């Protein structure tokens, strides 16, 4: 389970590359786990460590955790590639709660929203502004659906049901289970 996400203020972690795929977020060799815990150490592993497991000096991701930076701003088409939910698990455990980009891949978004991680698409102008001002403090408020960076404030949309789940810090399985009678009726109608 994850902590509710209502409002968060943090410095940005900026990774401006486009098409950051899930193999970058968590390389496949870490997928042999049967648990979802503790994957933060594998987040962006090959961007952080050399072949001998030594931290790379020139990595933008030096620290063990995201250094208190809970808002990741990334280039377009973030999270493309596989459906591995290990990607949002790893980012969450690494300390990230919000991913901002001009475009975020569908399956990654869907997975992120179920795991306390808010994928937030902004228009290209706002995206450029954030990428160009990496030192800014950013405030993301899920209750008012506003993002504030420097003197700029903009509003954003989140799928309403996913938003409720995030605000309450809960998985949607409980809600799905309330439809058990509907599901039984559907099955009966299929003969």
């Amino acid at each position, binding site marked *: 389970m994850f902590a509710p996400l209502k409002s968060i203020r943090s410095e940005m972690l900026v990774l401006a*590359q*486009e*098409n950051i*795929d899930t*193999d*970058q977020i968590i*390389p*496949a*060799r870490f*997928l*042999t*786990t*049967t*648990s*979802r815990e503790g994957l933060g150490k594998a987040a962006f592993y*090959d961007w952080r460590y050399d*072949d001998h497991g030594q931290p790379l000096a020139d990595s933008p991701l030096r620290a063990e955790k995201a250094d208190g930076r809970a808002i990741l701003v990334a280039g*377009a*088409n973030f999270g*493309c*590639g*596989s*459906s*591995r*939910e290990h990607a949002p698990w790893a980012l969450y455990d690494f300390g990230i709660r919000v991913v901002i980009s001009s*475009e975020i*891949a*569908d*399956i990654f978004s*869907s*997975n992120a929203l*179920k*795991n306390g991680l808010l994928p937030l698409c902004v228009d290209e102008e706002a995206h450029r502004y954030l990428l160009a001002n990496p030192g800014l403090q950013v405030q993301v408020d899920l209750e008012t659906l506003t993002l504030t960076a420097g003197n700029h404030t903009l509003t954003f949309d989140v*799928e*309403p*049901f996913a938003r*409720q789940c995030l605000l309450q810090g809960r*998985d*949607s*399985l409980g*809600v*799905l*289970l309330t*439809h*058990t009678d*509907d*599901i039984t009726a*559907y*099955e009966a109608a299929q003969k």
Partner: protein
Amino acid sequence: MSSPTSLFDKLWQRHLVVDETDDRPGVLYIDLHLIHEVTSPQAFSVLDMRGLSVRRPDLTLATLDHSVPTLPPGDDGALPYATPAAANQVRTLIDNCERHGIDLLDLGDPRRGIVHVIGPELGVTQPGKTIVCGDSHTSTHGAFGALAFGIGTTEVGHVLATQCVFQRKPRTMRIIMENRLAGGVTAKDMALHIIREIGADGGQGYAIEFAGPAVEALSMEGRMTLCNMSIEAGARFGMVAPDETTFDWLAGRAHAPKDAAWDAALDDWRTLKTDPGAPIDREMIIDAATIEPMVTYGVSPDAAAPVSGIIPQQDEAAHAYMKTQADQAIGTLKVDRVFVGSCTNSRLSDLREAAAILKDQKVKSNITMLVVPGSEAIRQAAEAEGLDRIFIDAGAQWRQPGCSMCIAMNGDKGEPGDLVVSTSNRNFIGRQGKDVRTVLASPATAAASAIAGHVADPRDFPAVTLP
């Protein structure tokens, strides 16, 4: 009469248990849930934690593919797992299936194979079904006119517990492939061409239907290759309306309907097509006749070009990683490894395509070539035809079925710096091993490149007719 409806909308409507509203996504019923060892363990844990059982084990089918070795057991009889964790993951799925009464295509089961290969092969993949799997290439099954899409592990748990997922309806896109593919050009080339045209994010938020004469002319294997790579264009769904090619392919398969049920199924399946005038959010027309054998040259699947052409300008990081320059001829790329396999191109026809070029030829001595059939059934059929001999005689390795170098998590991988010509679907940085450079290609192009030692145009290599 009802209004004209797209294939996608017909299937969506049929499976809605609860309609979507502004506040809630719809509840969509799932007819077939495929699971594998990598994306299921945490879902079973959630079931255990909440004291839930699997609602429909009879609609769930499990296989082992991602973490399993493709080398046979050693002298001690043990499979050479890459790590103890990989072995544990396999054991975990075996346990979970046993506890919940789920049919598992276990190691040694003659039905086992890559999840997107075995579904169609066993005939559990059928037109009109909703099919999910914790795997983004689930779109493969859309080749049969099924509504098939990849889900995450949380959703795997949802489907195990309720046989449903919450979903909002995506937009629809139709790509019409006019004319016919030229000789020596394959479905893989078509897929890479389309991805280049619409971009790696062009299908984001869409369900794509592939249509038109060039798609109708494809075999089922070709259609699977095409739908498989929908996700490389950003689309979760790819589909082709079922037709006689589909029905012929399915007839007589283990789980296909029989006798009267088959006739009834056909009556229904024949209605599964997009009606003329049906609303589609975006439509595109592409001339298939102009497509050439394609390969990728960069680190995103839309970085694709004709194999006979040059590498265009791309961002510096991609050039640096791939050790390439703009305007360099693609044919100058030296090859270290060749991989024929994956859910994109590991079916019998793919193996034949590679074997026809490799017969009586030699893989360049510095190249390691792996040929990994997509399933046990394919392995046996290929061996019955002598394809394994053709590969082995050419100097390639003939392996046991699995995902292998497509995802490189079972120990099959390249060495840093290697250039791999691969029939798989992703050329991401590090996908086939750390610092490994991937060039995506068709089986024919892969075979030609293995002989030439550099990325090569298969049309320059005569394909022999196999007995």
